[in-house]
Every structure is written in C-alpha cells, then in structure tokens.
C-alpha cells in the first residue's frame, strides 16, 4: 500500500509541478491585466501548496509558493509559506530577505502599531550557517585538533599541542552558539506562530464584548504567538509582549 502511494506520488507530483510552472508563467505573461494575472497566480499557489502537502521540502518550493501567494494578493499565505521554508532552511538568505519584504507589505495603521506587532528579523547562528556548513566546519576543527595532537605525538613540539587546543576551543564555541540558537528556536516553537488572515481588533478577553486592547485593529499578515485557546478564541502575544485575544477563525496556522 505504501509502495503504491509512493508510486502514485512519484507519478503525479511532476505533473502538478509542471502545471504550477505553467500557471505561474501564464500569470507573468498576463501581468498587464492584474485581475487575470491574479487568477493564474492563485491557481499556481494552490498547486504548489499541493506539492508541499505531498511532502516536498525544498526551500525553492517555499520561495515559489510565497511569490505565487503574494502575487495572488494573499499576503498571509505568503508569510506562512516563507515561515514554512525557513523552518527547513533557516539559513536561506533569499527566504529571509523575502520574509522582511513581505513584512514590509503588511499595512499597519501607523508606525506605533508596526513597532508593537512586527517581529524582529531572524537572528542567531542558524540564520547565517546551514546545518551542512556547521557540520563541515565542526568536522574541520575536530580533524585539525586530532591532527595537531598526532603531530605533537610525533615531534613533541608544544606548538602542535597549542594548535590542537585552539581547534578544540573553537569547536566548543561553535557548539555552544549552535546549542544556544537551537534552545531559542525551541522556546519560540513552544508558542506556535499564527498569522492574521484579515484585519481584526485585538480584544482584552475571549469575546466580542470585551474592549479592544489596542487603539487600532491588527492588519492582515500580522504575526502573533499563540499562548492559549478558549471557546473559539486564541490568546496571542505580540512582538512587544502585549497579550490579547483573537477569533480562531481569523488566524492561519504555520508549521
């Protein structure tokens, strides 16, 4: 059964990918007619979402999805696709730039609201270095330490021992930075990211009768962290630490 499913996917995925390519190309070709182009981009985005749902994790797919959604006018879905891509390739510079660009496109009522809601750019060792790069650098340092020790065993020249120690120290610093980065990411993931799909006021409680927490409504595309759920409402926290409640139906889940 699993083999049959795998075979079916292996046959159908290239077709879906090809159809998505064609739809995106049609959208680009008809960009002078925004309404027609958006229809093509929206269909391309649907097809690309199907590929992601089928298990394709290539960061380039995330970029294509994000662009298709954004050109189709669906900024929240664009942001979700970018976060999806960064979840598997946090170091991807293009995805990081695209995420900041999409965040720029969120229409905050004013600068104060943007400062309160907009998350800071991604940071940490993981945003600068891929797992493969880390693996290779760590491997190089470890190899240098081992070779330095071996050379010291051959020559008894203390300089080789110092070199081996320095390599080990660098390796320890690298491992510490990576571990700290992972711990921060795990702490963030403990509070799932949610993206607002349409403009909505942040309420002080889980109901429409509660007063607004902020003077202005949160715009579509605002990124919030989920704290709790109650009765169809989600308690969320903004980037500046302000907590409030939003209707569950207005929020889009991210990976």
């Amino acid at each position: 059964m699993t083999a049959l499913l795998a075979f079916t996917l292996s046959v159908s995925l290239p077709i879906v990918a090809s159809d998505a390519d064609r739809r995106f190309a049609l959208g680009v070709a008809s960009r002078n007619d925004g309404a027609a182009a958006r229809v093509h981009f929206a269909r391309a985005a649907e097809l690309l979402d199907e590929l992601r749902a089928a298990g394709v994790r290539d960061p380039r797919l995330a970029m294509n999805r994000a662009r298709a959604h954004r050109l189709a006018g669906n900024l929240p879905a664009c942001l979700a696709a970018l976060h999806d891509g960064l979840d598997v390739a946090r170091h991807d510079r293009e995805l990081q730039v695209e995420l900041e660009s999409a965040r720029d496109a969120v229409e905050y009522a004013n600068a104060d609201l943007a400062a309160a809601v907009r998350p800071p750019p991604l940071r940490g060792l993981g945003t600068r270095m891929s797992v493969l790069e880390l693996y290779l650098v760590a491997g190089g340092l470890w190899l240098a330490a081992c070779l330095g020790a071996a050379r010291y065993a051959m020559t008894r020249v203390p300089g080789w021992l110092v070199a081996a120690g320095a390599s080990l120290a660098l390796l320890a610093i690298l491992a510490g930075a990576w571990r700290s980065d992972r711990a921060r990411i795990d702490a963030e993931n403990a509070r799932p990211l949610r993206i607002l799909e349409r403009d909505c006021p942040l309420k002080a409680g889980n109901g429409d009768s509660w007063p607004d927490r902020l003077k202005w409504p949160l715009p579509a595309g605002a990124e919030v962290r989920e704290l709790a759920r109650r009765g169809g409402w989600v308690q969320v926290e903004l980037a500046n630490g302000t907590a409030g409640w939003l209707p569950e139906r207005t929020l889009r889940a991210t990976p």
Partner: protein
Amino acid sequence: MSVMRIVAAALAVVVLAGQPALFEPPQGYYKARGPRVIATWSVDRVTLPEDASLVATLAIEGATNPTEIVRPDLANMREFADRFQIEPLPTASPGVFVWRLKPRNATVDRLPSLDFFYDSGVKVGNPFKNARVKGIDLVVTAVEKPAAAPIPLLAPERLFAYDSSPMDREPFEAGTPAWLGLFAFGLLVAGGWLLAWRRLYPDGAKLAKLRRNRAMRRATDALRRADSAAAVAAAAIGYIRSRCPLSPGRETPAEVGEALRLAGIDEADATEAFLRRCDAARFSASSDTPMSLAEAARDLLAKLEAAA
C-alpha cells in the same frame, strides 16, 4: 327610533330629487372635452439600443378644446418613470404632446398604456370617458459596455522570478550517526597518520640518533680533510650546530659556549676552550697545528656524542 330613520330617508329622497348626479374628474383627466375624443401613442422607432432614446408623441383627436388640454406628467407616473428617463419636448400644434424617452435598461419592452379621460359633455350619467391610449411594444437591445482598461499587476520584479528546476533538494540534517561518524573520522585519520609516520620513522629517538650519526660522520670527514685551524673549527661548529640551535653568525667561542650551556650540555666549557685554541692557532703564534687541533676536535666530539 325606526320612525325617525324612515322620516330622514324620505326627506333625503325629497331633497335630492331633481339634482344632477355629482361626478368628480378622475385621475387621468387632462381637461379634454368633446363627444368622442381619441388619443394615440406614436413613436419614431420601436427598436433601439439601450443607450439611445426615442421620441413618443401623444396625439389627441376629436377634442373641442385642444388648446386647453394639459400635458400628462409622465415623470410622475411610476410605470413610465421606472422605464424611461423622460424629457418633455415642445409641441408645434395643440392636442399633440411629445417626449423624448430614454430606456433605463435593456429590460424595457413596452411604452405603457395611458388612461386618458375626457369630458364627453353628456348630461345623463358619468360624463368622463376613458380614451385609453394603447401602449406600444418596444425592443431595447443591450449595449455591450467596453471592458474597463485592465490594471497592471504592480509588484517588485523579483517576485515574478520562478524556479522551475526539479524540487528534489532536501535540506541536510546531521543526526547522531553523522556526528559520531565525524568524531570517528578525525580520530581515524590522526591515528592512521601517526601509525604511518611511525612505520616510516620507527620512532623519534632512532630518528634523532640517525640524524646525530650523520652529523658525526660529516664532521669526521671534514676533520680528515681539514688543513687549517679555521677548517677544524668550522667542522666542530658544524657538528655542534646539529646538536643545538645556533643563530647564524654566532660562532665565536663565547657565543658557542653560552649556547651549549643554555642547552644543558656539560662539555660547554671544554668546547669553548677548544674553539679559543683554534682562534689562537689562526691569529697568533701557537704551538697547535691543524693536525693536533683535529685530534683534539675528535676527542671533543666523541665526548659530546657520548653526552647526548
């Protein structure tokens, strides 16, 4: 009580007897009079596009007072106002009224009928007769509106870039086996290198001994060929240089002696004394000959070699 009613009824009959009946002018009476008035609609065309207009003419014939007839106010009649935009036009002759009618939409299919009452002048019964103007069927065709000019999709150019290469690049993930493999790889490479080195050079002591033996051999050969005090001294310093680091140019007896003392070699003083003998033989009258100095050098080198 019933008697009172009967009396009142009889009184009413007596009072109203001989009076003409009262008839109010009905709605749709435009002050036309005549025994037989005929009113008709006419239009300049019955088929027109939605955005065009037609000219409708109401002609009244048979009226005795054509100049007194009032123009019907079509704009206040719902059946007309709902269908048309109405513009009264001036008329040249009495009893004829003209309007320009523009259909409000393509669903308009008829110029409605119009109740047109006139005073027939009869003395008996209702004098107001209805010369109802019969409506006319119309065909209003829809106009194809020109499509609105398309609005281009404005977005940064990079958003239109699309990567259509096969999406088969899975991100690398280093699991525990990969890290253990890396750890083992470093150890294996370093250990392998050390073993190979030891195989090539059985051990460091033997290597050093080999190096020293070669130096002794070279020094002995040099002493055999030495024909001056300077050559003897150079052969001795060449050997000493292989035993301990001597900076280039530091070859005076005092400098060599100091270097040997720093290296912890017991024969430092004897070496310094020997080199002074060589210098004395070179630069002053001395009883030492190159041969005697070479012999002394061999003794000194043997002591140094034994002390290694």
